[in-house]
């Protein structure tokens, strides 16, 4: 029996590793072969090295600022909402999860429509990039810090609060130390997300604010300089890999307490501001779908775009890519979820940003695999860590006795999967499907690197419309995407019965 188990483990590891080897490491190696010492020298010391250095420094600068503001905001709101009411903090947790899952082009459009078009810095330029990143990452911090705060030991919190009456500063310092792993983890994750962000700087920053991702896109797809592009892509993988490696050092198992902070309604302003910050851009999409900011009048003109063949094609492409990506991530995710080793291997796709992923796939496979298969493969790779983790969690919840019984009665192979596995991991299975669909709908970077006009997705269409300042149409399509994305996110929460973890 032990031998049989080992055989399953080997197969699971081999299949997962092969999939990632073929679609991540081979393309990355191919990119590496395209770079040269001259490209590296040219990038760092050449006549135009300032663009590379400027983009790299800007990537770090905006990521550090965005992550820091996100953690301070999200962390404080988590604390404040727990001080106000448990029910309120639960509601904000749902909102945070839904906001975190929103497609990046839609968020960029909503910030531009709400603030940018009115000349408010929050909607374009440097602060536009920062504020859109905070929209995503403050919810991430909220979820992490909320979990850390609410699972602390009740006795510990009570004694701390008693102590706080005498020394507030020491109270906050001690509290911060206790939730430090959550703060560091969420800051690091937020940093990675902001560092590899593409759609937001591209839409809100324009040519003035280029991140490394935007420069990789420009160098490879506009200047055709694969040597330089490949060097930057590998540098980006190295930076992200290092950061993700460091995050492991701070991982701690969550304590299992049920702390209650002492109620204090003076903190109510923080959850209210957070609620406004997260909801206003999304709600304003509905408004801007029918309000023309140029003529300052209400109109139903945007509705005409729904009958445009371009929109229909983009909707069908989006649907098809999402389904194929879901199928791929379910198959590989199920195999990867068979044991902890293969599941961890499936996390390797996090090493590459979606732009680098798209670039690698384009460089190596664009003439071997049709675009309509390559795009869903890219989406599946982005969704794989979420799918495999959910399926792994589901699988690990199958009682050991049932597995023992199956072994005893020789129920294995396909029969085991059909009669035992599938019914028992149903929730995880549904969650993995919904995660894969929501990730695929919102994916922009890899799609933009791979697409031709006939394979345009709704996410890319929203970017094009926003760039052309066709805000009515962009807002209308974004509204539909927001609705779909929200429904799927709420579906995930419903199926997971309040499990808000965002596994990475």
């Amino acid at each position, binding site marked *: 029996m032990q031998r049989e188990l080992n055989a399953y483990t080997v197969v699971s590891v081999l299949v997962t590793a092969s999939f990632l080897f073929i679609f991540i490491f081979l393309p990355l190696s191919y990119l590496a072969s395209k770079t040269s010492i001259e490209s590296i020298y040219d990038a760092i010391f050449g006549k135009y090295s300032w663009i590379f250095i400027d983009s790299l420094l800007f990537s770090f600068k905006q990521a550090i600022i965005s992550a820091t503001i996100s953690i301070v905001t999200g962390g404080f709101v988590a604390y404040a909402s727990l001080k106000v009411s448990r029910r309120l903090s639960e509601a904000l947790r749902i909102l945070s999860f839904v906001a975190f899952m929103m497609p990046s082009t839609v968020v960029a459009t909503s910030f531009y429509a709400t603030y940018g078009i009115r000349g408010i810095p929050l909607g374009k330029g440097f602060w536009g990039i920062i504020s859109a990143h905070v929209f995503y990452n403050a919810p991430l911090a909220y979820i992490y810090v909320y979990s850390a705060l609410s699972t602390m030991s009740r006795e510990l919190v009570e004694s701390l609060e008693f102590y706080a009456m005498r020394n507030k500063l020491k109270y906050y310092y001690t509290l911060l130390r206790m939730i430090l792993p959550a703060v560091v983890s969420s800051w690091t994750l937020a940093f990675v997300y902001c560092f590899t962000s593409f759609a937001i700087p591209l839409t809100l920053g324009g040519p003035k604010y280029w991140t490394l991702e935007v420069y990789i896109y420009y160098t490879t797809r506009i200047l055709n300089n694969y040597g330089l592009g490949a060097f930057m892509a590998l540098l980006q993988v190295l930076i992200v890999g290092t950061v993700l490696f460091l995050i492991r050092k701070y991982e701690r198992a969550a304590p299992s307490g049920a702390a209650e902070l002492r109620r204090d309604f003076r903190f109510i302003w923080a959850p209210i501001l957070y609620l406004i910050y997260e909801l206003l851009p999304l709600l304003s999409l509905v408004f801007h779908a029918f309000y023309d900011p140029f003529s300052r009048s209400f109109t139903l003109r945007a509705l005409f775009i729904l009958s445009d063949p371009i929109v229909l094609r983009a909707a069908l492409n989006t649907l098809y890519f999402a*389904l194929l990506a879901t199928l791929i991530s379910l198959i590989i995710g199920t195999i990867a979820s068979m044991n902890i080793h293969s599941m961890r291997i499936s996390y390797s796709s996090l090493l590459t940003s979606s732009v680098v992923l798209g670039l690698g796939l384009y460089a190596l496979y664009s003439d071997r695999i049709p675009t309509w298969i390559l795009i869903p493969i890219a989406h599946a790779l982005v969704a794989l860590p979420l799918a495999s983790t959910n399926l792994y969690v589901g699988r690990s919840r199958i009682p050991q006795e049932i597995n023992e019984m199956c072994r005893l009665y020789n129920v294995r192979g396909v029969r085991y999967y059909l009669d035992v596995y599938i019914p028992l991991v149903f929730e995880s299975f549904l969650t993995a*499907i919904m995660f894969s669909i929501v990730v695929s709908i919102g994916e922009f970077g890899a799609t933009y690197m791979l697409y031709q006009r006939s394979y345009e997705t709704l996410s890319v269409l929203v970017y094009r419309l926003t*760039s052309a*300042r066709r805000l009515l149409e962009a807002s209308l399509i974004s509204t539909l995407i927001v609705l779909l994305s929200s429904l799927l996110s709420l579906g995930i929460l419903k199926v997971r019965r309040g499990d808000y973890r965002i596994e990475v």
Partner: protein
Amino acid sequence: MNRKALQLGIIAIIVIAVVAGAVYYMTQEGERGELLVYVYDSFMAYGKEGEKKLDTLIRSFEEKYNINVTVKKFDSAQDAYNAVLNEIELGKKTADVIIGITPSLAAEGKKKGIFEKIDVDVSNVNRTAISILDPEGYVIPLDYSYLAMIVDTDRLNVTDLSLEDFALSSELASKLIVINPTTSGTGLEFLYWQYAYYEYILGENWTVWWKSIINKAYVASSWSSAFDIFYGDQNRPIMVSYATDPAYSYYFYNSTNLRAFVSHHEGYYYGWMYVEGVAVIKGTEHLKEAKLFVEYLLSEDFQKEIPLNNWMYPVIPVALPEAYKYALDTSKVIPLNDKIPPESIEALKKYLTVEWLKIIKE
């Protein structure tokens, strides 16, 4: 319904939808024809028949010569050219013919050795267009126009306009839409024009103009974005576009509110000729078919369709439609293209775009 059935049902629906989609995409891609042509997606698409016009013209070629053609469309000519370069660089199969090559792309492509010299009769092709695009015959002109500043006179009543006016008036600059030269072919050609005019006609540093307007003007990412903004934003009635735009406006909307301007100095008009050409990719296995295709593009059958579908001037003598009397009179315009010799265009492109980025980032 039990969970197992539901779960299997979900998988079945996904699988069926995926298979149906795959069949659809395979049908759409179709069989690869004998001749693979890369073109930007708006080529010949601005007429009353829209994108169908190019399909009709291609079908006509296929029937006439019994040659199958597969057309692959890209967002811009630059994208199509980039795809060819990428595919050659990565050792992949690429186009046999590419349409939309501008003088700068022609010079760049020739330097990289990706074009095949085409032996076709160009005796009746516009000589200026040939000399600007490629006198050596690797890239053959298909159509041409001049870049211009287009003004909606209903929103801004001007009778005279030159590039330097924007540098002198920030109010005027705040009404202007320019196009990002790092992402758009039209934007890049405009940068060449502005550079040549400032450096060779006015004798001033070209960056002065950009530094004065950049915080006021709107930088669109592509020509079509600029066009959408021009019509969407009432406060931006001037855009960088083409000399034939007023003719388009008259033809479709019976409107004479658009006016096109080129720069002028000491009584002379200075413009930038925008020439589009066709090139055959070196190493093609269908050289004979490609040559026939180029000849077809230069035939009267094809050229007479250019004015009302691509809104450019044909390169062979063809009667122009009535609407063209509203286009800018280009007979007095001196093209500045010769100020930038083909051999220096690649280096200049890098220099200009990088310096432009520096100005933007400042």
